Protein backbone atom coordinates (compact mmCIF):
# COMPACT_ATOMS: atom_id res chain seq x y z
CA UNK A 1 0.00 0.00 0.00
CA UNK A 2 2.77 2.39 0.97
CA UNK A 3 4.73 1.32 -2.11
CA UNK A 4 1.87 2.23 -4.47
CA UNK A 5 1.43 5.65 -2.86
CA UNK A 6 5.20 6.32 -3.05
CA UNK A 7 5.23 5.43 -6.74
CA UNK A 8 2.17 7.59 -7.49
CA UNK A 9 3.76 10.55 -5.66
CA UNK A 10 6.96 10.04 -7.65
CA UNK A 11 4.86 9.94 -10.83
CA UNK A 12 3.30 13.30 -10.00
CA UNK A 13 6.71 14.85 -9.21
CA UNK A 14 8.17 13.44 -12.43
CA UNK A 15 5.26 14.85 -14.44
CA UNK A 16 5.88 18.29 -12.93
CA UNK A 17 9.63 18.21 -13.64
CA UNK A 18 9.03 16.96 -17.19
CA UNK A 19 6.54 19.73 -17.92
CA UNK A 20 9.10 22.30 -16.73
CA UNK A 21 11.68 20.74 -19.07
CA UNK A 22 9.09 20.79 -21.87
CA UNK A 23 8.39 24.49 -21.39
CA UNK A 24 12.11 25.35 -21.38
CA UNK A 25 12.60 23.44 -24.63
CA UNK A 26 9.58 25.14 -26.20
CA UNK A 27 11.25 28.46 -25.33
CA UNK A 28 14.30 27.37 -27.34
CA UNK A 29 12.10 26.32 -30.28
CA UNK A 30 10.47 29.76 -30.32
CA UNK A 31 13.57 31.85 -29.63
CA UNK A 32 16.29 29.76 -31.30
CA UNK A 33 18.24 32.12 -33.53
CA UNK A 34 18.89 29.66 -36.36
CA UNK A 35 17.14 26.73 -38.00
CA UNK A 36 19.51 24.03 -36.61
CA UNK A 37 18.80 25.30 -33.08
CA UNK A 38 15.09 24.78 -33.64
CA UNK A 39 15.62 21.33 -35.13
CA UNK A 40 17.76 20.35 -32.14
CA UNK A 41 15.09 21.63 -29.76
CA UNK A 42 12.43 19.64 -31.63
CA UNK A 43 14.57 16.53 -31.25
CA UNK A 44 14.81 17.21 -27.52
CA UNK A 45 11.04 17.78 -27.43
CA UNK A 46 10.50 14.30 -28.86
CA UNK A 47 12.77 12.82 -26.18
CA UNK A 48 10.85 14.61 -23.41
CA UNK A 49 7.51 13.44 -24.85
CA UNK A 50 8.82 9.87 -24.82
CA UNK A 51 9.56 10.35 -21.12
CA UNK A 52 6.04 11.73 -20.62
CA UNK A 53 4.54 8.68 -22.32
CA UNK A 54 6.59 6.36 -20.10
CA UNK A 55 5.45 8.15 -16.93
CA UNK A 56 1.81 8.04 -18.07
CA UNK A 57 2.22 4.32 -18.79
CA UNK A 58 3.17 3.87 -15.13
CA UNK A 59 0.31 6.13 -13.98
CA UNK A 60 -2.43 4.40 -15.95
CA UNK A 61 -1.03 0.87 -16.04
CA UNK A 62 -1.39 0.48 -19.82
CA UNK A 63 1.98 -0.94 -20.87
CA UNK A 64 0.92 -0.67 -24.52
CA UNK A 65 2.19 2.93 -24.28
CA UNK A 66 5.77 1.61 -24.58
CA UNK A 67 5.13 0.67 -28.22
CA UNK A 68 3.80 4.17 -28.84
CA UNK A 69 6.98 5.60 -27.30
CA UNK A 70 9.20 3.43 -29.52
CA UNK A 71 7.32 4.44 -32.68
CA UNK A 72 7.44 8.11 -31.65
CA UNK A 73 11.21 7.77 -31.23
CA UNK A 74 11.47 6.29 -34.74
CA UNK A 75 9.45 9.17 -36.20
CA UNK A 76 11.54 11.73 -34.31
CA UNK A 77 14.78 10.21 -35.57
CA UNK A 78 13.54 10.23 -39.15
CA UNK A 79 12.37 13.84 -38.80
CA UNK A 80 15.76 14.94 -37.47
CA UNK A 81 17.60 13.14 -40.27
CA UNK A 82 15.31 14.72 -42.88
CA UNK A 83 15.82 18.19 -41.36
CA UNK A 84 19.60 17.72 -41.33
CA UNK A 85 19.50 16.72 -45.01
CA UNK A 86 17.31 19.76 -45.73
CA UNK A 87 19.77 22.11 -43.99
CA UNK A 88 22.64 20.56 -45.96
CA UNK A 89 20.94 20.89 -49.37
CA UNK A 90 19.82 24.43 -48.55
CA UNK A 91 23.41 25.39 -47.70
CA UNK A 92 24.74 23.79 -50.88
CA UNK A 93 22.18 25.55 -53.07
CA UNK A 94 23.02 28.85 -51.34
CA UNK A 95 26.74 28.43 -52.07
CA UNK A 96 25.99 27.46 -55.68
CA UNK A 97 23.85 30.59 -56.04
CA UNK A 98 26.64 32.72 -54.58
CA UNK A 99 29.20 31.23 -56.97
CA UNK A 100 26.78 31.73 -59.87
CA UNK A 101 26.22 35.37 -58.88
CA UNK A 102 29.98 35.97 -58.65
CA UNK A 103 30.49 34.45 -62.09
CA UNK A 104 27.67 36.59 -63.46
CA UNK A 105 29.30 39.67 -61.92
CA UNK A 106 32.60 38.71 -63.52
CA UNK A 107 30.98 38.28 -66.94
CA UNK A 108 29.14 41.58 -66.59
CA UNK A 109 32.36 43.41 -65.59
CA UNK A 110 34.27 41.95 -68.50
CA UNK A 111 31.55 42.84 -70.99
CA UNK A 112 31.50 46.38 -69.57
CA UNK A 113 35.28 46.59 -70.10
CA UNK A 114 35.03 45.33 -73.67
CA UNK A 115 32.16 47.70 -74.39
CA UNK A 116 34.23 50.59 -73.13
CA UNK A 117 37.12 49.38 -75.22
CA UNK A 118 34.95 49.18 -78.31
CA UNK A 119 33.56 52.62 -77.68
CA UNK A 120 37.10 53.95 -77.42
CA UNK A 121 37.97 52.25 -80.69
CA UNK A 122 34.88 53.73 -82.34
CA UNK A 123 35.77 57.22 -81.13
CA UNK A 124 39.24 57.02 -82.54
Amino acid at each position, binding site marked *: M*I*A*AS*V*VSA*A*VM*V*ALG*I*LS*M*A*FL*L*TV*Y*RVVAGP*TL*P*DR*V*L*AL*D*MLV*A*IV*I*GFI*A*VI*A*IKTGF*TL*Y*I*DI*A*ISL*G*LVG*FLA*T*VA*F*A*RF*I*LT*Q*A*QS*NTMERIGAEQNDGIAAESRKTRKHRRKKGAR
Partner: protein
Amino acid sequence: MLWAVIVTALLLSGALFSLIAAIGIVRLPDLYSRMHAASKAGTVGSGLLLLAVGIHSEDMSILARALAGFVFFVLTAPIAAHLLARAAHKAGHRLTPPSVRDELLLREQIAKRGYKKRG
Protein backbone atom coordinates in the same frame (compact mmCIF):
# COMPACT_ATOMS: atom_id res chain seq x y z
CA MET B 1 8.84 -2.18 -1.41
CA LEU B 2 12.23 -2.62 -3.06
CA TRP B 3 10.63 -2.48 -6.51
CA ALA B 4 8.82 0.71 -5.54
CA VAL B 5 12.06 2.30 -4.33
CA ILE B 6 13.86 1.37 -7.55
CA VAL B 7 10.99 2.66 -9.72
CA THR B 8 10.84 5.90 -7.73
CA ALA B 9 14.58 6.46 -8.06
CA LEU B 10 14.47 5.76 -11.81
CA LEU B 11 11.48 8.08 -12.31
CA LEU B 12 13.00 10.99 -10.41
CA SER B 13 16.47 10.62 -11.94
CA GLY B 14 15.06 10.33 -15.46
CA ALA B 15 12.92 13.43 -15.03
CA LEU B 16 15.87 15.33 -13.54
CA PHE B 17 18.12 14.31 -16.44
CA SER B 18 15.48 15.63 -18.86
CA LEU B 19 15.27 18.88 -16.91
CA ILE B 20 19.07 19.25 -16.94
CA ALA B 21 19.08 18.72 -20.71
CA ALA B 22 16.39 21.36 -21.15
CA ILE B 23 18.28 23.84 -18.96
CA GLY B 24 21.40 23.14 -21.03
CA ILE B 25 19.45 23.80 -24.24
CA VAL B 26 18.30 27.16 -22.92
CA ARG B 27 21.49 28.32 -21.19
CA LEU B 28 24.39 27.20 -23.40
CA PRO B 29 25.69 29.73 -25.92
CA ASP B 30 26.25 27.68 -29.04
CA LEU B 31 24.46 25.19 -31.30
CA TYR B 32 27.16 22.59 -30.76
CA SER B 33 27.29 22.92 -26.98
CA ARG B 34 23.48 22.78 -26.87
CA MET B 35 23.69 19.59 -28.89
CA HIS B 36 26.12 18.22 -26.32
CA ALA B 37 23.54 18.82 -23.59
CA ALA B 38 20.51 17.56 -25.50
CA SER B 39 21.80 14.40 -27.12
CA LYS B 40 23.40 12.92 -23.99
CA ALA B 41 21.29 14.00 -21.02
CA GLY B 42 18.05 13.87 -23.00
CA THR B 43 18.65 10.31 -24.17
CA VAL B 44 19.54 9.13 -20.68
CA GLY B 45 16.46 10.88 -19.26
CA SER B 46 13.91 9.22 -21.54
CA GLY B 47 15.80 5.92 -21.33
CA LEU B 48 15.65 5.86 -17.52
CA LEU B 49 11.91 6.60 -17.63
CA LEU B 50 11.36 3.70 -20.07
CA LEU B 51 13.39 1.46 -17.76
CA ALA B 52 11.15 2.55 -14.88
CA VAL B 53 8.07 1.39 -16.83
CA GLY B 54 9.72 -1.96 -17.56
CA ILE B 55 10.60 -2.59 -13.91
CA HIS B 56 7.26 -1.31 -12.60
CA SER B 57 5.31 -3.78 -14.77
CA GLU B 58 7.20 -6.76 -13.22
CA ASP B 59 6.78 -8.57 -16.52
CA MET B 60 9.74 -9.92 -18.48
CA SER B 61 8.30 -9.27 -21.95
CA ILE B 62 7.43 -5.65 -21.14
CA LEU B 63 10.86 -5.11 -19.58
CA ALA B 64 12.39 -6.51 -22.78
CA ARG B 65 10.32 -4.11 -24.88
CA ALA B 66 11.32 -1.16 -22.71
CA LEU B 67 14.97 -2.19 -22.97
CA ALA B 68 14.59 -2.45 -26.77
CA GLY B 69 13.25 1.10 -26.81
CA PHE B 70 16.15 2.30 -24.65
CA VAL B 71 18.72 0.62 -26.91
CA PHE B 72 17.00 2.11 -29.95
CA PHE B 73 17.28 5.64 -28.55
CA VAL B 74 20.88 5.11 -27.49
CA LEU B 75 21.68 4.00 -31.03
CA THR B 76 19.80 6.72 -32.92
CA ALA B 77 20.43 9.85 -30.82
CA PRO B 78 24.17 10.14 -31.62
CA ILE B 79 23.51 9.53 -35.32
CA ALA B 80 20.89 12.27 -35.44
CA ALA B 81 23.10 14.69 -33.48
CA HIS B 82 26.13 13.96 -35.68
CA LEU B 83 24.16 14.46 -38.90
CA LEU B 84 22.69 17.73 -37.62
CA ALA B 85 26.06 19.05 -36.43
CA ARG B 86 27.71 18.18 -39.74
CA ALA B 87 24.92 19.81 -41.75
CA ALA B 88 25.04 22.95 -39.59
CA HIS B 89 28.83 23.18 -39.87
CA LYS B 90 28.67 22.77 -43.64
CA ALA B 91 25.92 25.40 -43.76
CA GLY B 92 28.37 27.88 -42.24
CA HIS B 93 27.29 28.03 -38.59
CA ARG B 94 30.55 28.63 -36.74
CA LEU B 95 31.54 28.05 -33.13
CA THR B 96 31.13 31.02 -30.77
CA PRO B 97 34.27 32.92 -29.71
CA PRO B 98 35.04 31.25 -26.33
CA SER B 99 35.68 27.96 -28.14
CA VAL B 100 39.25 27.87 -29.39
CA ARG B 101 39.61 25.03 -31.86
CA ASP B 102 37.62 24.01 -34.94
CA GLU B 103 39.31 20.99 -36.47
CA LEU B 104 36.72 20.50 -39.22
CA LEU B 105 37.14 24.08 -40.45
CA LEU B 106 40.93 23.70 -40.30
CA ARG B 107 40.75 20.54 -42.38
CA GLU B 108 38.53 22.22 -44.98
CA GLN B 109 40.97 25.12 -45.25
CA ILE B 110 43.93 22.76 -45.64
CA ALA B 111 42.07 20.82 -48.32
CA LYS B 112 41.25 24.06 -50.13
CA ARG B 113 44.60 25.84 -50.03
CA GLY B 114 47.07 23.02 -49.54
CA TYR B 115 49.09 22.42 -46.43
CA LYS B 116 51.69 25.08 -45.71
CA LYS B 117 54.47 24.38 -43.25
CA ARG B 118 55.00 27.18 -40.78
CA GLY B 119 58.41 28.65 -39.95
